[in-house]
């Protein structure tokens, strides 16, 4: 139990990457057309964080994993039907707006409030996990802000690996420029880790895990506290799809030799 950790994973829900997105502006600011009916998934990088958390907890007996997620209750329930079959966790839902346009500072405040209210959470043992960027806002700031609000000042972003040592310290690999990893050693918890892809494949669905999880997920969803997110002076001047459309030249009648010659000339390396 010496290395038991309490891992809180912050993960939003995002439109399935295969969906076509069309921004619209409503009375509450920008959003996506038909956002509530678009199929949703757990944010991909945050999902990596969840799988890494479960793996770390399994290797360190006495550890526990919570998943804190902010989104409309109905949408959270829909996504959890799948996510709950992957790994064991306790859900801490926050009933709030969906999408990437609300202010990240307000989102972080809501997350920090929910984490502070988790019964039995030992903040001295806390590893705050999440994706280093979301697939919605993609700002890469919410987790840092949440960490600051929880007074955690050892933070790592773009994490692909953590190795927890017997003495409670851990080594972290963070992505840096040029396809490299920075290696750091931290004396121990608490810490914030914003995950990139990590090293684990997505776990297969396990209905038995799902049944265990859903026993606590459904009551948690029913009790989810509502959150309104202040704009904090954030004003959108315009929101739209990129207009750039290229005139594509489709070349069907050249041999591989001719194409290669054209490409080499284009590259300018001949």
């Amino acid at each position, binding site marked *: 139990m010496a290395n038991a950790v309490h891992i809180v994973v912050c993960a939003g829900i995002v439109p399935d*990457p295969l969906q076509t997105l069309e921004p619209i502006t409503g009375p509450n600011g920008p959003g996506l057309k038909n956002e509530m009916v678009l199929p949703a998934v757990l944010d991909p990088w945050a999902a990596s964080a969840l799988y890494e958390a479960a793996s770390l907890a399994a290797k360190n007996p006495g550890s526990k994993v919570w998943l804190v997620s902010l989104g409309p209750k109905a949408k959270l329930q829909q996504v959890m039907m799948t996510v709950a079959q992957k790994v064991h966790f306790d859900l801490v839902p926050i009933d709030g707006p969906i999408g990437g346009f609300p202010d990240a500072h307000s989102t972080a405040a809501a997350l920090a409030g929910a984490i502070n209210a988790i019964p039995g959470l030992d903040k001295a043992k806390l590893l705050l996990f999440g994706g280093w960027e979301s*697939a919605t806002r993609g*700002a890469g700031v919410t987790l840092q802000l949440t960490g600051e609000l929880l007074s955690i*000042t050892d933070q*790592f972003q773009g994490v692909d690996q953590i190795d927890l040592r017997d003495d409670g310290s851990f080594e972290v690999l963070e992505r840096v420029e040029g396809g490299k*990893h920075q290696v750091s050693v931290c004396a121990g918890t608490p810490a914030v880790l914003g995950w990139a892809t990590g090293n684990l494949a997505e776990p297969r669905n396990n209905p038995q895990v799902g049944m265990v999880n859903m026993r606590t997920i459904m009551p948690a969803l029913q009790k989810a506290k509502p959150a309104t997110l202040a704009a904090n*002076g954030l004003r959108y001047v315009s*929101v739209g799809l990129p207009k750039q459309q290229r005139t594509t030249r489709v070349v069907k009648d050249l041999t591989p030799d001719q194409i290669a010659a054209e490409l080499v000339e284009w*590259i300018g390396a001949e």
Partner: protein
Amino acid sequence: MENLLVLTHVDETGSALTKASLEAVTAGRELAARLGASLTIGIVAADAAAAAGVLASTGARLLAVSGEAFAQPRYTSDAAACEALCRAAAATIVLAPGSSRFSRVGAGVAHRLGGFIDTHITALGGTEAVEATRWFYRQRVEAVLSRDARPWFLLLDAGTHAAFAGEPAAVAVEQVSVELPPLRTTVTGIHAPKQDAQTIRPNAKLLLVAGAGWTKKQADGKIHAEEAGDLILGFLRAAGASLGSSKSLVDQRGEDQPVLPFLTHLNQIGQTGATPRHAMGLSTCCHGEEPHVVGWRFIADRRAISLDPNCGWTRGKADVVYIADAFQVMAKVNALLGAGAGK
């Protein structure tokens, strides 16, 4: 009046500002001139004086946090350094490069100063107020936003401004002292592929994008993953190109399917990968939205090799699409480039 601060840091040599930092300096000079704002440049480095000379001709006030503790990119020390620089400059708008070092701490520093932050800024405009352009939903939706609250931190994407280039000269730098809390984290090194195995080259002119088609059954009904790997690596060596990959190809590593052994998630571009900036892009064996729409957003000149003449994702996204077998074409390209047919 706005007080504009540009935060900069040094590269791995410890004595030169990073290119992204110099790009932020250019953005800061332009914005300060437009707003009639005062300009201060802050430097975080072990020895900031050595790096400051290149900024002499900016005419800006130069502040620095120096010392061995600031040689390491680390949250606790970098956040304290940036916070001290912002307070010393009484900054209302803070520009900084969106490097891994400042992306790690930018939000925390904004929070400590009671400010707000927006990141991945690709352009700064506006006449009455500062307006920042950034992308949402992984480069699918573009928005222009503004804030009245100050201080406002803006982290700039690399490659969106020209790097500042001034004649180096002796210059006065005001040192800002920082009281550091106990440091619990130590940077112990960098893991990097061997020089000849590095396939990610941010400064390359050309990005080669490899799709899952490379490891699918070919016309003879067989998979030729080894040959695909040779062709791709041969091309990277001969053309000095960087390698990007679709998610599906990288994911095959964990799915017991044929893989290209040199590919990792760091090569991945698109929804859950990087959005690199290169002058040219050549996509091969890609048949999805990820490489052509999301991952290529900032690639200027785009070509594709595809077997599918009806691939909807290349139409309107690539400048030229060659309908051909990428194995055959790339073997010929490598031969012309002197790569010995990719060996």
